[in-house]
């Protein structure tokens, strides 16, 4: 290998600083959430304890954290499943041009760039003017989909742009019906990317704030609850909650990555031996 140029070392240093910038603050509140009972929102640490975590589990000075957590969890799963199904269908639709496909594509891009507060405001207005009660599982659910679906579809477009159509042709030549082609050829091939779509669907919903602000109704999701806390809680209990929910997010991401990795490994092992010279 040729020797590394000087720019390599400069950029490595830059990259390390960038990572510290990305992760440093989160690690800081991770450490500070173990403050002793007398500790404040910044260093120095006044002892080390689990005091603030215990606070979160007690019946509660700070609001309905566990209720909002379970709502966010359920909503995240609803959004995740819907995003996967609708994105796959949309991705399949866009493989062929159909009347209105260009317009629909621009709507997807618009959904991505329109400020989230506008979705929140508009959905809230429609619901209130039609006399429907806003609720996280109806208006909140739909408002979040306008953020997760564009990401799901962009991933699906990228996947189908690289999709080798000869697999489908082979299946059709062997007499498979269109549904069989989808079920036994297309879906298994795109399955690993669906893990990515699901991960985006869940985490974007679980962390969404602006789109649920006016559409969740009287029962808060977790980000709304946390934001409420920032205005009236001035103890490290806020950091403890932040640490817990970040750890939860990291666990979710870890599980998804693990599943994707296992699928790829299984596929590599069960893959074709064409061209490997075995008779």
């Amino acid at each position, binding site marked *: 290998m040729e020797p*590394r*140029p000087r720019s*390599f070392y400069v*950029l*490595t240093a*830059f*990259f390390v600083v*960038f990572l510290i910038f990305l992760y440093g*603050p*989160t690690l*800081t*509140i991770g450490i500070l959430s173990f403050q002793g009972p007398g500790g404040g*929102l*910044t*260093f120095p640490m006044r002892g080390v304890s689990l005091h603030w975590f215990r606070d979160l589990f007690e019946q509660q000075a700070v609001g309905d954290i566990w209720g909002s957590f379970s709502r966010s969890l359920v909503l995240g799963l609803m959004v995740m499943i819907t995003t996967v199904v*609708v*994105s796959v*269908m*949309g991705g*399949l*639709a866009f493989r*062929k041009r*159909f009347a*209105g*496909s260009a317009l*629909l594509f621009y*709507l997807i*891009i618009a*959904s*991505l*760039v*329109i*400020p989230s*507060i*506008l*979705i929140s*405001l*508009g*959905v809230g*207005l*429609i619901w209130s003017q039609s006399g429907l009660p806003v609720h996280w599982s109806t208006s909140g659910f*739909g408002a979040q989909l306008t953020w997760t*679906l564009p990401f799901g579809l*962009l991933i699906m477009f990228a996947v189908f*742009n690289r999709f080798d159509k000869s697999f489908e042709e082979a299946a059709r030549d062997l007499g498979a019906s269109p549904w069989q082609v989808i079920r036994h050829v297309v879906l298994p091939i795109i399955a690993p990317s669906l893990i990515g779509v699901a*991960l985006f669907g869940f985490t974007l919903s679980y*962390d969404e*704030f602006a789109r649920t602000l*006016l559409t969740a109704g009287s029962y808060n999701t977790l*980000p709304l609850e*946390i*934001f409420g806390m*920032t205005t009236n809680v001035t103890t490290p209990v*806020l*950091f403890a909650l*932040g640490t817990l*929910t970040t750890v939860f*997010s*990291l666990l979710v*991401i870890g599980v998804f990555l693990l599943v994707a990795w296992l699928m790829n490994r299984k596929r590599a092992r069960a893959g074709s031996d064409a061209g490997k010279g075995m008779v």
Partner: protein
Amino acid sequence: MRNNSVIGWLLAAPLSLVLLVFLVLPIAMIFVVSFWGATEWSIYPAILLDNYEFLLTSDVTYRVFFNTFKYAAITWAFTLLIGFAVAYYLAFHIRSLTWQIALFLLCTIPFLTSNIIRMISWIPFLGRNGIANSTLISMGVIDEPLEWLLFSDFSVILAFVHLYTLFMVVPIFNTMMRIDKSLIEAAADSGATGWQTLRHVIIPLTKSGIMIGTIFVVALVMGDFITVRFMSGSQSANMGRLIQNDIALLQYPSASATAVILLITVLLLIGTLLRFVDIRKEL
């Protein structure tokens, strides 16, 4: 051919339905309500231009409008520089695919955690008695704690860069990975210096990635209200904050009028940027 369209429509139906109910209708509703009137506790249908008149004749609007662009421009510049450097490093200096994926994931993971928590996590760092101030004081750089670290334009932009640089890294990295490495060798063989290769080969070939990143960052910063509110301690405002203030006062028609202005601005800007890139081809 006709059959194709029917299948296409059926497959696209759920997507169209969601976008119709939760995107098109809400925007139409905002447009309609922006002409309505409001009392202190309710809103009523009407066709009034009062909301726009008030908005377009007020000084505050123009100041806030300017602020919105300022945040977007400064954040764009920083995210572009940092994002380009990081993407360049990953694409051209990391030699094994496994390491590229691992480091790329490391950059991506924070995006999948809560923005609110990531904002909160700057408090212990930037506060009056925070890590930055106490470090600077103990190093003897300053005598008094700096007041402008938290709850200022500085902290707002810092948070934007922290939250959104990733949206530059991903598309730029994506286009860089598709650059044929032999082009770079050819440039080097023809005697180009590293800078010349960067300037005349890599940057032109990365333009579409830069455009997509720009679209993301500009749209996110211009539409934001929560970062500005939280990181400026309610001391600065952008368009989103103006909308949110009106909402808090139940002045939905006036919030809607501001929303329409913001929407037109964002769509014009993004529409212009979209002319320079074909998103579907780049995916």
